[in-house]
């Protein structure tokens, strides 16, 4: 944890510096000494102190008990998590173009396969899940899920 704390502390201090620098540019409320920059300045100062605190603490080697120990995930598992994020990104990029009924089963199928679900249940649940969500949100709740390349059926 110490090494992580050290790196996170440095990153927080850098973030704090950026926040403090950006806060200079925010306008004040007319007739007041403070303005839009006040809270960012406060947050920036606080983050700077916390970041430095983390750095100092890990340099001094103070062992803090953390509930989440750095677990040893295999590369395969890390790739799984990254693939799930990539699926979300693909949905964002392609939903409007392809339409919900095309992109959703593809995304579902991808995540099922990432989690090592067999092909047959994966395809079945991908199609069924898409239909269910479409009916619940588009039909029942009237959320305008995009149709994309498909002609609006109703």
């Amino acid at each position, binding site marked *: 944890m110490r090494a992580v704390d050290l790196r996170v502390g440095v990153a927080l201090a850098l973030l704090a510096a950026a926040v403090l620098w950006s806060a200079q540019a925010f306008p004040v409320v007319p007739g007041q000494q403070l303005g*839009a920059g006040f809270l960012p300045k406060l947050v920036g100062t606080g983050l700077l102190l916390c970041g430095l605190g983390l750095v100092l603490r890990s340099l001094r080697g103070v062992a803090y008990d953390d509930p989440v120990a750095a677990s040893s995930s295999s590369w395969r*598992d890390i790739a799984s998590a990254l693939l799930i994020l990539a699926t979300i990104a693909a949905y964002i990029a392609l939903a409007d173009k392809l339409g919900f009924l095309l992109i959703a089963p593809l995304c579902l199928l991808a995540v*099922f396969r990432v989690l090592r679900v067999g092909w047959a249940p994966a395809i079945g649940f991908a199609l069924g899940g898409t239909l269910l969500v479409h009916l619940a949100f588009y039909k029942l709740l009237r959320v305008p899920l995009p149709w994309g390349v498909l002609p609006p059926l109703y």
Partner: protein
Amino acid sequence: MDALATAFGLVFQPYVLLVILLSATYGLFVGAIPGLTATMATALLVPVTFFMAPVPAVAAIVTATAMAIFSGDIPSALLRMPGTPASAAYADEAYALTRKGQAELALGAGLVFSVLGGIFGVLVLIVAAPALAEVALKFSSFEYFWLVMLGFTSAIFIAGNDVLKGCTSMLIGLLISCVGLENPAGAPRYTFGNAELMGGISLIPLMIGMFAVAEVLRFALAREKPVMAVDRPFGNVFAGMWALLKKYPLQLLRGSTLGTVIGALPGAGADIAAWMSYAISKRFSKEPHKFGTGHVEGIVESGAANNSALGGAWIPALVFGIPGDSITAIAIGVLYMKNMNPGPMLFVENPQNIYAVFIVFIVAQLLMLPLGWMAILAAKRILRVPAALLMPLILLFCIVGSFAINNTLFGVVIMGVAGVLAFFMERWGFPVAPTILGVVLGTMLEEHFFSSLVKADGQLWPFFERPIAGALGALVLLIWLWPLARRLLRRAPLRSA
């Protein structure tokens, strides 16, 4: 009285009752699946409640969370895997009971004392909230400023054992709340020329990301194969409960009281209430050596505590708009969407809605007995549902839900980023609850600070001038300075020696 009659009318109609029943089933299911939390259940429910009237919307959240917190006990007892973090405190104990062949006792105590604790929390809510609202009507921006500060303080000092990391989490939340136009000068902050960011970071997609997507990612990274401890049909789970009640009345009262108080404190919810209660139960027990070996006393006390915390958390949420836990943080967002803006005026203008919420709370607790029992009977089937089949569907639900709040894909972007953020925060030991509190209360903090400052003409002493503001302010300063003072006091004799 008219308002009360109206409230009964609002709750007891087929549509609302159906919503309660469905959300109860949903809550029991989500709570029973390890890795799916009560907060996640709430976050996923919001896009659906978005399309309901205020009373059924709140009813859905209240019912689902109460059920989820109880049913989290089921996999604790059967798999030694808490269904929600709120059951983690006594998962070992419940599992040990099951191993001794007393699964019925573990599950029955979980159910019955969840209901009793839950009812206790609701009764306190019903008595305390209107009384507090009466006082809060006289509050000015000074009192609200200190209340928000007290909220942050309790989130940092109570919710975690690492003040530095808790503080960092809260500041990250405040930084997120800075985004957008909503500030005293009305200037765009951190919008980077993006029109979607002008309105700020949308709370619901953020919550869905932090509580659901982060969980899906965690699941992808670490999969455990649980082992079912019982392979026989359950007997009567209610047997022996009356004897337990007669044996441990003090434990029930102590757990419920502590749970309600912890629930009411911002940033700390059912999970922390359960941990503290379990520790207290062991400390004051006549048989502390039995704890951990399958002793039901701790389950009685902390099982009551985590459910009473739910009612307690609604006290500051309804009266001040300050969430008592992560669940009410989401609920506050729903209240705002439904034009039921939390605050003392809600009790004056819309008492029937408040009463309706109270009635729903009681109905949910009473429903928990039969439905919870059915969930226990169905437990083995529920627990056989492979999480690998659920997680992708949950992810799609997250995506569509985040989209549905503002009908924009930007919500999905917020969701994804928040999911990654929460995943790493948790992994590196930063608590997520203070961040949520920072996001929810950031705007409130800034607003009340500025109007106070204008009233005070730039001076600081008026912040302490009014009696309640002064007392709250002193309390906040005391909590912050106490660790420092204690350290100085400890060092002083060393130096003189």
